[in-house]
């Protein structure tokens, strides 16, 4: 079987990558600013909603219902989309999905497609696959455009270029946008204007657009995309052909269910009462929008995830990114350390399950990229018990290894340590002390049981403070 591109090729495992990221103080201060800003705003947006907990319970139950009868709902969706003039395709893996998109783009006579930001197409490495087939994919979301033009990797689900500051963005635009003015300033307003000019012609002339889907309604075949900039509306409205790539878990049974998610998603994600634009379409509408619509239903590890009774709850995820913004590990290491399109707490549980390959060391290291503080569960709008899945996957990762390998011993030592708060705190305090003695910031030896881990690798230890100590202080700050 071909490698699942959900993890990036040639990047180190989490502990190694995290160690490097921790040395980058610019990155850490960017991230700290970003995560704290969104976190505080989100708390206010959620605090406004008196029935938030009831909405969360409903969201959880709707997604569980969908997953429990996924075969039925998928077939309903297929029938509804087809009866409205759309065409449904099924793709077992990334290669299959990419091949379908490429074939459709070629059939439409396009050597260029405009894209709405989408996790599913990032997950399958669509842009690279299209490029190989001679079709250029143009990211139209500002952050994705910054990542694309900068030849970079995304670092956040919602704001993929969060690790870049304005002067870096300006440099990228000046080097990569032929029409960018020589005196382009680093004001976000000027940069957004440059992006607008750069993309305008593309929107007005593109024949084919590719999008993901936030939600699909099984009984009507309606698809919903949530966004801010209007680039989504441009892509979903102007080109003749629209191709939507959607994970098979992205549906809800009825259109009524949208009343729950349209409340949960924007407040959890951008901390707004509502995101600026939401588009919804059902098949093809004569005279309005694309006249050819293709929906690609993507598995790529989702059925494997579904088969695990504990791990399957990760498929409830609506990709709001709230869990990233509260995660002390994410805040310090940044999204790229996770080596996957899905960073942060959700990435730590989703990526290894989607990859579903015990030999993928990078994916296997991810369930250990957490301090199990539980903040991710508290903010998750669909109540995914991320800490529960993390411990479950740790146990699984350990069990996959032979008992005698140093890897297994290290993993199990880490698992014991992380699972027991007292031992964890002790080891971390020891680590912090060690960090003081090691000015390079890298800790290569830890006391037992951490020593089992550091015997085979360096331990990434953040400065002199444990995540828990840090978290406590931090929580106090935000309460003030």
């Amino acid at each position: 079987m071909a490698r699942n591109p959900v993890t990036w090729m040639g990047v180190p495992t989490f502990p190694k990558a995290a160690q490097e990221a921790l040395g980058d103080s610019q990155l850490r201060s960017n991230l700290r600013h970003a995560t704290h800003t969104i976190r505080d705003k989100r708390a206010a947006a959620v605090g406004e909603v008196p029935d938030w907990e009831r909405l969360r319970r409903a969201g959880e139950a709707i997604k569980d219902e969908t997953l429990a009868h996924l075969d039925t709902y998928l077939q309903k969706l297929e029938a509804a989309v087809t009866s409205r003039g759309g065409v449904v395709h099924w793709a077992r893996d990334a290669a299959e999905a990419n091949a379908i998109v490429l074939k459709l783009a070629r059939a439409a006579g396009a050597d260029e497609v405009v894209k709405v930001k989408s996790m599913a197409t990032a997950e399958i490495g669509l842009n690279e696959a299209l490029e190989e087939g001679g079709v250029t994919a143009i990211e139209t979301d500002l952050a994705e455009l910054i990542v694309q033009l900068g030849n970079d990797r995304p670092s956040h689900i919602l704001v993929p270029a969060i690790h870049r500051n304005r002067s870096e963005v300006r440099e990228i635009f000046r080097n990569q946008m032929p029409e960018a003015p020589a005196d382009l300033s680093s004001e976000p307003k000027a940069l957004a204007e440059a992006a607008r000019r750069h993309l305008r012609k593309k929107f007005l002339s593109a024949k084919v657009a590719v999008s993901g889907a936030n939600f699909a309604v099984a009984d009507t075949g309606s698809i919903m995309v949530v966004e801010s900039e209007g680039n989504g509306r441009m892509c979903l409205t102007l080109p003749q052909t629209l191709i939507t790539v959607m994970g098979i878990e992205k549906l809800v049974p009825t259109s009524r269910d949208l009343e729950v998610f349209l409340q949960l998603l924007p407040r959890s994600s951008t901390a707004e009462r509502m995101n600026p634009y939401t588009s919804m379409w059902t098949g093809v509408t004569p005279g309005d929008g694309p006249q050819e619509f293709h929906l690609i239903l993507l598995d790529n590890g989702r059925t494997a995830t579904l088969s695990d009774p504990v791990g399957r709850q990760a498929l409830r995820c609506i990709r709001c990114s709230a869990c990233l913004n509260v995660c002390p590990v994410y805040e310090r290491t940044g999204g790229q350390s996770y080596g996957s399109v899905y960073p942060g707490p959700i990435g730590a549980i989703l990526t290894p399950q989607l990859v579903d390959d015990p030999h993928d060391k990078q994916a296997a290291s991810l369930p250990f990229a957490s301090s199990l503080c539980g903040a991710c569960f508290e903010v998750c709008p669909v109540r995914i018990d991320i800490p529960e899945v993390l411990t479950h996957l740790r146990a699984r990762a350990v069990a996959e290894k032979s008992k005698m390998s140093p890897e297994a011993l290290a993993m199990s030592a880490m698992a014991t340590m992380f699972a027991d708060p007292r031992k964890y705190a002790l080891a971390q305090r020891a680590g912090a002390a060690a960090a003081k003695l090691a000015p390079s910031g890298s800790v290569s030896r830890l006391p037992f049981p951490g020593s089992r881990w550091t015997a085979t690798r360096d331990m990434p230890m953040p400065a002199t403070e444990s995540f828990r100590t840090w978290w406590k202080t931090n929580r106090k700050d935000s309460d003030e």
Partner: protein
Amino acid sequence: MSDARTAILHRVRDALSDRPMAGDIPRDYDLHRDYPDLLELAQERIADYKADVRRVSPAQVGTEITAALARRGAARVIAPPGLPTDWRTPEVTWLDDTPLGLDELDAADAVVTGCAVTIAETGTIVLDAGPTQGRRALTLVPDYHLCVIEAHQVVATVPEALARLDTTRPLTFISGPSATSDIELDRVEGVHGPRTLDVLLIES
């Protein structure tokens, strides 16, 4: 590709062989909430997104439309097919969607529309491509959107709005003008969608 279809459905059934039971979906969240003045709430919440929102009496609509278009310097204005005649004020040139080509939409100064429903709590205007709104491209390409909302179209909550909508029509939910926060989380209005959104709320 039917192979893939069979395989995926097969895998799904295999994966669910433990027959997980999903409980009932609790719908005890609020469908409606009472507010003393819905229009006031709508005005405040839409304005929160940096849109200009004014409350007007039914008799004033024509003058207010003229004034708003003049303030923004809009002379060539797109009219959806069912725009009420008293909204088509004589001071500007109206472009009927015959349909218009993309470059004609791009060259227009503004579009004036009605709406299907407006959600006061979230400050969201919903267009459903009805006669007062037209196809989706009309409110997307021009840089300025003036939306006229009638009092009876305003509801309090998201569930109330969805209950009123036919979700199989092409829908656009608009909450303020186009915006991005992608650079250092600094909010910038106007990226690709209309840079300016003005709203007139007609009191009943």
